[in-house]
């Protein structure tokens, strides 16, 4: 492609929590393709910018501490750097001024792989504030690279960085900084002679990495038994790390001077409470409560506006378009279907925004610390708490965020149980049903409705824990489980950037769900507008009453299956359509009840409340409502989640087991609930 040839490709690399995403955001302020979740890069994503009439593509890789991967997200990183670097013009390596030592390990490995590097020393102001002086000229000399000091948060140094990139000040260092140990030297030499690869360190990395670094087989064929004996990957990796740190210590002592007793005051003070044996948990619970409170109370206002707006628009269209089927399709089908979903955008947005802020501030690592011991009896890792909590927004990014769980079994269990967490797509369903079946009363100033919703969240969480406990006994253990995790200093979150990310996600939700609902609305409308004719001359009647439409006919044929759960045919249709995505249930219901247009001014929820079965019973009785909610709590009803589970587990078997297991559980549980409460 000519297009990419003119565009220069640069890659951002660095440890986790060094402000890489901030630099990325500052650099590529246009056309970002973000595939990331709550503040952290999970997959490589790219953006672009132009500087002095030149186009640049920036690829942001997940953070890592070394070239040898320990988890799935680090594997993405290592694979990229060892396999796909042919057409990049350079690596921008981000060092955080407060943890240079740790950052130099990976920098040296990347330099030794023969990649051209430019170093960014980020958060330089933070170091200065703590009385740390860094001799940048000396650092450039010892690192054999250009070093650009930046403070990405205030945008200082970013122009310099763009200039250095455009003038191509990437440097490939001439000598290798790690001397291959004498015992392995011969093997590496032998392979060098028979291979097109000319970089001895690259061969070394393939030899001493146990799993991911590719092309292993062709090299391993060249080894004899004695060679293999002296290649114990783990021992050699350790040896490399220790030797490299010896050199790094020298660099540090020659370039950095600091006051003897600097302290991380903010982090010290906050952690006295936030990781406290008792108060730490109290604060975590309070934060969660606060977020949920905001989700319901703050979102109520925009939701009301959207609701009235939808009704207005729908009536406006109904009045101003010529009467007929198209009018009915647009005003009753499409507008009310899509309006039924947009109304939940504020709730989802608020939830996501708070989760982004928590992640961004460094607090999530503390939650992992607090929860690790409590989650382990269930076969989960402390790191599982991040997917579980972000699962309350959406299971898809949550499942992707399991990539940093090193242990395969713990990661699989986390993936399998995360969809039990109450995601924001279930919120519309719960909200509408709770609105129908729970009285508007208060106990100690707390509304029954809020309590009912809290109970649904707890049900999801409890089910996730119980299922992981069962899965733990069932899945064979692979590898050792461990938790070695950086606890970053607290940072002021990037309110603006997180807001932008949130808007993107919410827009994605609206358009994604909107498309499905658009199609579903049309299908539903078509099948409800037409019906079998009672007149013998025509086969098909138009503009029939809903109860006599094809849709009703199809819905009613489902009744033997859904009747024991207490559902009528409309709910059956709703549940069927929501296998595309849960929130479609509400869109379908809105469409169905709007179509039954005896009172167009009335809100859909009022129509649902008034609806009765032929025998005079309420359609949405307490037992039915409860049964619907339980069904939605357990059923695997989201095609996108299924797709992401397949991708992340690389196993159809687990995906199918999960889908069948969850939906089966949903059916049985709803059956019990309805039969007990009816």
């Amino acid at each position: 492609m000519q297009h990419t040839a003119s565009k220069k490709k640069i890659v951002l690399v660095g440890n986790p929590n060094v402000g890489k995403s901030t630099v990325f955001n500052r650099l590529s302020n246009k056309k970002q393709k973000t595939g990331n979740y709550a503040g952290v890069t999970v997959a490589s994503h790219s953006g672009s910018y132009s500087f002095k009439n030149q186009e640049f593509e920036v690829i942001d890789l997940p953070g890592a501490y070394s070239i040898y991967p320990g988890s799935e997200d680090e594997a993405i990183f290592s694979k990229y750097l060892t396999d796909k670097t042919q057409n990049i013009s350079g690596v921008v390596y981000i060092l955080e001024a407060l943890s240079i030592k740790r950052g130099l390990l990976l920098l040296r490995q990347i330099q030794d792989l023969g990649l051209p590097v430019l170093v960014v020393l980020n958060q330089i102001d933070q170091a200065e504030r703590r009385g740390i002086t860094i001799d940048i000229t000396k650092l450039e000399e010892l690192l054999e690279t250009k070093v650009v000091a930046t403070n990405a948060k205030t945008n200082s140094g970013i122009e310099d960085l763009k200039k250095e990139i455009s003038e191509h000040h990437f440097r490939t260092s001439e000598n290798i900084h790690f001397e291959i140990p004498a015992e392995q030297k011969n093997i590496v030499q032998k392979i060098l002679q028979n291979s097109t690869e000319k970089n001895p360190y690259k061969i070394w990395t393939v030899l001493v990495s146990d799993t991911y670094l590719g092309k292993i087989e062709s090299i391993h064929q060249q080894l004899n038994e004695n060679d293999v004996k002296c290649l114990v990957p783990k021992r050699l990796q350790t040896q490399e790390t220790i030797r490299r740190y010896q050199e790094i210590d020298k660099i540090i002592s020659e370039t950095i001077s600091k006051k003897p007793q600097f302290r991380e005051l903010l982090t010290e003070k906050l952690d006295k409470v936030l990781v406290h044996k008792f108060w730490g948990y109290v604060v975590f619970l309070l934060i969660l409560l606060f977020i949920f409170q905001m989700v319901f109370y703050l979102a109520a206002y925009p939701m009301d506006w959207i609701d009235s707006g939808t009704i207005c628009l729908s009536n406006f269209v109904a009045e101003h378009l010529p009467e007929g089927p198209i009018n009915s399709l647009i005003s009753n089908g499409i507008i009310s279907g899509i309006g039924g979903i947009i109304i939940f955008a504020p709730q989802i947005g608020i939830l996501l925004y708070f989760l982004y802020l928590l992640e961004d501030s460094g607090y999530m690592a503390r939650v992992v610390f607090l929860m690790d011991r409590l989650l382990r009896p269930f076969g989960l890792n402390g790191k599982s708490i991040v997917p579980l909590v972000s699962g309350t927004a959406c299971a898809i990014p949550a499942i992707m965020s399991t990539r940093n769980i090193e242990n395969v079994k713990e990661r699989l269990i986390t993936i399998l149980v995360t969809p039990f967490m109450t995601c924001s797509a279930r919120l519309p369903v719960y909200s509408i049903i709770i609105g129908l079946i729970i009285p508007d009363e208060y106990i100690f100033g707390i509304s029954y409705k809020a309590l009912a919703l809290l109970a649904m969240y707890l049900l999801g969480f409890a089910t996730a824990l119980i299922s992981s406990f069962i899965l733990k006994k069932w899945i064979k253990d692979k590898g050792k489980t461990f938790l070695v995790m950086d606890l970053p200093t607290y940072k002021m979150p990037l309110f603006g950037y997180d807001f932008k990310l949130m808007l993107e996600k919410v827009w994605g939700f609206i358009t994604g769900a909107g498309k499905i609902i658009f199609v579903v609305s049309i299908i539903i409308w078509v099948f409800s507008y037409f019906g079998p004719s009672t007149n013998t001359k025509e086969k098909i009647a138009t503009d029939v009453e809903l109860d006599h439409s094809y849709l009703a006919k199809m819905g009613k044929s489902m009744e033997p299956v859904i009747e024991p759960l207490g559902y009528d045919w409309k709910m059956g249709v709703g549940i069927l359509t929501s296998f595309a995505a849960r929130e479609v249930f509400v869109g379908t219901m809105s469409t169905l009840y709007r179509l039954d247009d005896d009172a167009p001014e009335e809100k859909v929820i009022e129509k649902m409340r008034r609806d009765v079965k032929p025998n005079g019973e309420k359609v949405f009785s307490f037992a039915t409502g409860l049964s619907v909610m339980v069904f939605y709590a357990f059923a695997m009803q989201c095609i996108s989640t299924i797709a992401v589970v397949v991708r992340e587990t690389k196993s159809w078997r687990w995906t199918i087991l999960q889908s069948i297991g969850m939906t089966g559980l949903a059916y049985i549980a709803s059956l019990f609930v309805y039969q007990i409460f009816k």
Partner: protein
Amino acid sequence: MNETSLKLSEFPHKTRGIICRYQNEDLKMPSKIIEMGLLPETEFIILYQAPFRGPLYIEFGTEKSRIALRQEEAEFIIAKEVQ
């Protein structure tokens, strides 16, 4: 070797210590421990521990890095008190 050396998992909290070596004959120690900079001769202090013998919260090194480490991982590290 110093007679007061202890496993990091048994090391007293809020006391300055220094890492002596690893106990890792069967190579079960996660390499991340070393990669993150918990190297021999590094000074550290255990600041907190999560309840029920949960992870340790350790501050270490000249850059005051903070790390969370499980009790089990701390077994691999042998340390002594700073005099």
